[in-house]
């Protein structure tokens, strides 16, 4: 027996050696042996009486266990006014921890074990997943369960998630590719569609903890959940554990998908002007299909011919032959339970923007007018069928497929049957589906770019609808101050600010001031006693300042610019330490005139609050979050005069409350400005200031802001 085996082996080796001598001159000479038969183990499906479905897949290669719960309900089930809530919910679910363990504590506990426990919410589902070393499973499983059922959603973590979301909003116009994919989705589904709507500062601000708790209550029920585990465990034991854990959990209301959601934009040209780019980003879109469409396999073959890999028509023509683009792609898209989009995109240099639009549309027309050849069809089908083994080459993929099919109600053998359907597709099918699902005359064409560098204006192709991507300023109706700084101005706040602008001389006059030089006398109360300083302050908005104070011991000059902060004293020049610099920067940002100049900056939030009596004057409180930090103004509502300002500062040794009372205002040129003020620090008088002379837009020597060379 043994001998026989050896013979077979040496025969095989001989065969290989013989083969090795032959010179191969073409890939066609290489023989392809049949692919080794294999069957990927399928996961075990367990249906509980309460509607929960569980899938278990053993995989003993590595000592790991991965799994989680997919829960129906996501972005599309949330109200339009709360756009962005799915993201906040999915993030704060995990970072907020459970009613018994804080999220921060979970972080420490889990990361010390290299365990992952994560939540996330997308378009139509949430996911609570875990990934642990086998030995940690017993520790992490109860936490996973606790997180699913008893999330805490503390305000603190909601605020954190909102801050992150607002950062995303503020950055969403920085990269042209990001603008393109967002706007084209809005064109494809309609801006109000649950599949396209975008978060704004206002929608983020409106999301409350109650909203999150309510959504959790609405969605997290066993009948809305699919639980799955894969890894180094024994299925029978795991099944018992999961049954014991979940069987007694009663059913809840079933989540459904909202109807509709597709209102495609009118065909035509849409333009987003972005002038700091050298490329035009181009997209074209109209509605696509749902996965259960019987033409799905034929469309996959068509997509492969149209845009599959490097050998598809789009890459061939637009990249290889014409060198117009680095990347071009797209096709008739589908989703499991709602329509996908037919969508194409590419990027090209500004000077070939229109040429590319025409070329891309030309490929759509060509797909209809010059349908696939037999050779193209064969290549596409072979590519799909030969690569099919990769859709099921790991146990994890087998599990994921079953979860997906269960979630969307497709038969469990869907993927097994799929290659047979592809096999049957003919050139006539491809020609037919191209005509049925691609409509060059119905495309909304979007271009993001620097139109003045295009070879011709976009309008030379047809009527253009400009899209304004300016990020709307935050606005809410009620400005009740909460623990966190509000992220949107209220209308009364904005109105009160306008009043102050009028009092000072009007917005135009204020905006015309780019720099000022103010000479004043300061009477300083210091621990060493009182002293007088003749002070000249040169301010160059927004963030450059030079202040000279003539003191008994000599002149002290402080300079703060965006890149430097230093002090010149009789003893020499030195950099301001970090904290002093920060407080100087904060001082500039909270300067009342700077705030008036920043009225239209979305980062400045104005919230009108209650009323208060300052001395004999009835004032209205105006809270301002000027780009970090807060200031409170007390404003005489009838006139718009600022009576007092209060702000927190860290200047001169520790945090302090600085109160400035403006005791008189006076016309300097065309502006009404403070002529005298008293400053109180933590309740103690710190300084009296009398303004002597004010010069607007003075000639400023740029060198005065640069640090003198050290001798």
């Amino acid at each position, binding site marked *: 027996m043994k001998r026989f085996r050896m013979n077979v082996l040496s025969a095989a080796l001989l065969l290989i050696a013989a083969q090795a001598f032959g010179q191969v001159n073409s890939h066609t000479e290489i023989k392809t042996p049949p692919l080794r038969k294999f069957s990927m183990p399928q996961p075990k499906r367990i249906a509980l009486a309460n509607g929960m479905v569980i899938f278990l897949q053993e995989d003993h290669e590595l000592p790991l266990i991965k799994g989680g719960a997919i829960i129906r309900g996501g972005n599309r089930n949330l109200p339009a006014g709360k756009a962005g809530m799915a993201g906040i919910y999915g993030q704060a679910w995990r970072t907020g921890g459970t009613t018994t363990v804080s999220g921060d504590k979970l972080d420490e506990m889990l*990361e010390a074990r290299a365990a992952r426990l994560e939540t996330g919410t997308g378009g139509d589902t949430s996911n609570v997943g875990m990934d642990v070393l086998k*030995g940690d499973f017993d520790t992490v499983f109860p936490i996973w369960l606790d997180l699913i059922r008893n999330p805490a959603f503390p305000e603190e973590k909601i605020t954190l998630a909102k801050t992150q979301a607002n950062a995303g*909003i503020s950055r969403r116009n920085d990269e042209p590719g990001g603008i393109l994919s967002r706007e084209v989705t809005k064109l494809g589904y309609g801006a109000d569609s649950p599949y396209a709507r975008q978060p704004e500062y206002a929608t983020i601000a409106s999301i409350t903890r109650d909203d999150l708790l309510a959504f959790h209550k609405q969605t997290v029920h066993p009948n809305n959940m699919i639980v799955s585990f894969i890894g180094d465990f024994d299925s029978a034991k795991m099944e018992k554990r999961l049954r014991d854990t979940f069987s007694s959990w009663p059913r809840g209301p079933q989540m459904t998908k909202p109807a509709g959601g597709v209102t495609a934009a009118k065909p035509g040209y849409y333009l987003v002007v972005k002038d700091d780019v050298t*490329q035009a980003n181009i997209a074209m879109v109209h509605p696509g299909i749902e996965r259960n469409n019987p033409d799905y396999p034929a469309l996959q073959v068509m997509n492969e011919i149209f845009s599959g890999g490097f050998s598809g028509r789009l890459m061939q023509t637009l990249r290889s032959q014409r060198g117009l683009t680095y990347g071009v792609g797209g096709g008739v898209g589908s989703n499991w339970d709602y329509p996908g989009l037919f969508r194409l995109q590419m990027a090209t240099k500004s000077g070939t923007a229109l040429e590319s639009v025409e070329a891309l549309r030309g490929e759509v027309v060509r797909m209809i007018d010059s349908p696939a050849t037999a050779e193209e069809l064969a*290549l596409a089908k072979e590519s799909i069928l030969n690569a099919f083994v990769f859709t099921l080459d790991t146990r994890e993929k087998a599990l994921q497929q079953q979860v997906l099919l269960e979630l969307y109600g497709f038969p469990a053998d869907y993927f097994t049957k799929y290659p047979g359907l592809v096999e049957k597709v003919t050139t006539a099918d491809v020609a037919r589906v191209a005509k049925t699902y691609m409509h060059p005359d119905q495309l909304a064409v979007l271009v993001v770019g620097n139109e003045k560098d295009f070879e011709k204006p976009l309008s030379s192709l047809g009527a253009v609808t400009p899209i304004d991507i300016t990020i709307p300023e935050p606005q809410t109706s009620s400005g009740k101050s909460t623990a966190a700084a509000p992220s949107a101005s209220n209308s009364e706040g904005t109105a009160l600010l306008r009043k102050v602008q009028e009092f000072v001389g009007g917005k135009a006059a204020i905006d015309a001031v780019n720099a000022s030089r103010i000479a004043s006398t300061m009477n300083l109360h210091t621990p060493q006693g009182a002293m007088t300083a003749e002070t000249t302050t040169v301010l160059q908005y927004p963030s450059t300042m030079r202040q000279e104070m003539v003191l008994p011991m000599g002149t002290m000059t402080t300079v703060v610019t965006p890149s430097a902060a230093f002090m010149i004293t009789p003893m020499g020049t030195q950099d301001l330490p*970090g904290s002093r610099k*920060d407080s100087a920067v904060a001082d500039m940002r909270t300067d009342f005139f700077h705030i008036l100049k920043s009225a239209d900056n979305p980062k400045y939030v104005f919230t009108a609050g209650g009323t208060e009596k300052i001395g004999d004057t009835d004032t209205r409180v105006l809270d301002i979050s000027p780009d970090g930090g807060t200031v409170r103004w007390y404003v005489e509502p009838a006139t718009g005069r600022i009576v007092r300002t209060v702000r927190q500062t860290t200047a001169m040794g520790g945090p302090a409350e600085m109160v400035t009372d403006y005791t008189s205002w006076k016309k300097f040129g065309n502006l009404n400005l403070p002529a005298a003020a008293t400053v109180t620090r933590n309740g103690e008088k710190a300084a009296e200031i009398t303004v002597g002379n004010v010069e607007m837009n003075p000639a400023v020597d740029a060198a005065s802001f640069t640090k003198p060379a050290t001798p």
Partner: protein
Amino acid sequence: MKRVMLLASLLVLVVTSAAAQDLASFEKRTSMRKLDNGLTVIITERRDAPVFSYATFVNTGSAQEVPGITGLAHMFEHMAFKGSDRIGSKDWPAEQKALAKVEEAYAAYDRANRAATNRDEEEVKRLDKAWKDAIAEADNLMENDQFSEIVDRAGGVGMNAYTSSDVTAYFFSLPSNRFELWAYMESERFRQPVFRQFYKERDVVMEERRMRTESSPVGRLVEEFLATAFTAHPYGFPGVGWPSDLHSFSATDAAEFAKKYYVPSNMVIAIVGDVSPAEAWPVIDKYFGRLPKAPQPDTLRTVEPEQKAERLVILRDPAQPVYLEGYHRPSSLHPDNATYDVISMLMSSGRTSRLYKSLVRDKKIAANSAGFNGFPGEKYPNLFTFFGFTTPGHTPDELAAGIAEEIERLKTEDVPEAELQSVKTRVKAGLLRQLASNSGLAENLANYQTLRGDWRELFREVERIDKVTAADIKRVANTTFKPSNRTVGKIESTPKGAAK
């Protein structure tokens, strides 16, 4: 990783000695050979499904470029999809002549076009036309994208490549009955690469540059940042190339570059999947043995000199603020490499990381913030780089101060044992998780073999990390994170149209 070893009572041991065990198990499943021409090939068997993945690593990246040919390593990577004399040609002898004509015509045009004095407009136009005519003629003799078509047809997935500062990598996956086809295709493209469609592809690469660098604020910042941080070493060049070089280098330049650097002794191939070494070696010998032996290219002479003064680049842009700071550190072969890795994990990995806790979670001044090694590469002394993206209303300077605070803690306080242990545990588990994918593993094995000289370093690095102490961290932080060793880069948001 054999299941037999995982008795429940040994679990603790498994986790703590995972690296050593992984290595032992892997050595059994992995074989490596150096062919006569110097090519190194690694095969790791993973027989679950009838598929395999591979990665070819060429120990050549954009750091091998000099002024005038910046971007050429990346350009060659694109050309490696254009086929050979046997793949992609309708009539090789004729095409070869036509391509030689394109080169002649281009050289004439390029000389006239870039003439510094007495530029003859008419002559330039004439030569431009002659060059384009020659291209059209050559184009008629080729099969468009035949290389990718053959791979696609065979069921290839994930076909791509990248060029970093250190290496050029090529990879895809195929069903395992296509192994011989793969060996033919992969050897063919390096045996006799043909530079067809070179000048079209140069336009494609210009588009890549426009997309990644010119039209992206962060791309613009990074290009300026690296050009400032490195004064002598080619790590300061953009990998995609300077526009002037991209507009002028030729297929002849690319051929010379390939001849020098694409030699078997400078290449490593790792294959992972359903491949039997006994059957694979003869096939590998047959096809890759055809690559001609050639001397190994010289190592790079230039070493970045010690930085003596802090450097700063500011990009004034309508985009939101970004903050970067980089400190020079030694190459990944330095004994302190593991300590740098631990510092990076401490600062950046997960929600317990110091930058996340301080800047993101507590101060809420950053949307995210991290510190990482190996920028832009690791083969040569490189940068440890911290970065942060501000949340609305916050400035890069606030991020700088926040990062400085955390660096100061590294320098002055001992990292608590529990924190250090947590990092080490995650490194070990991270290695384990990496082993699950054929393509990821192939890339890792080829990468370590190329840059560290031995694929086993993938496992040994984990052991070295396990030995890093709090004292190591303090020492390395103090020697590295000094203002004079720092380059700062930031985007300051400036309204549209403002002076920059």
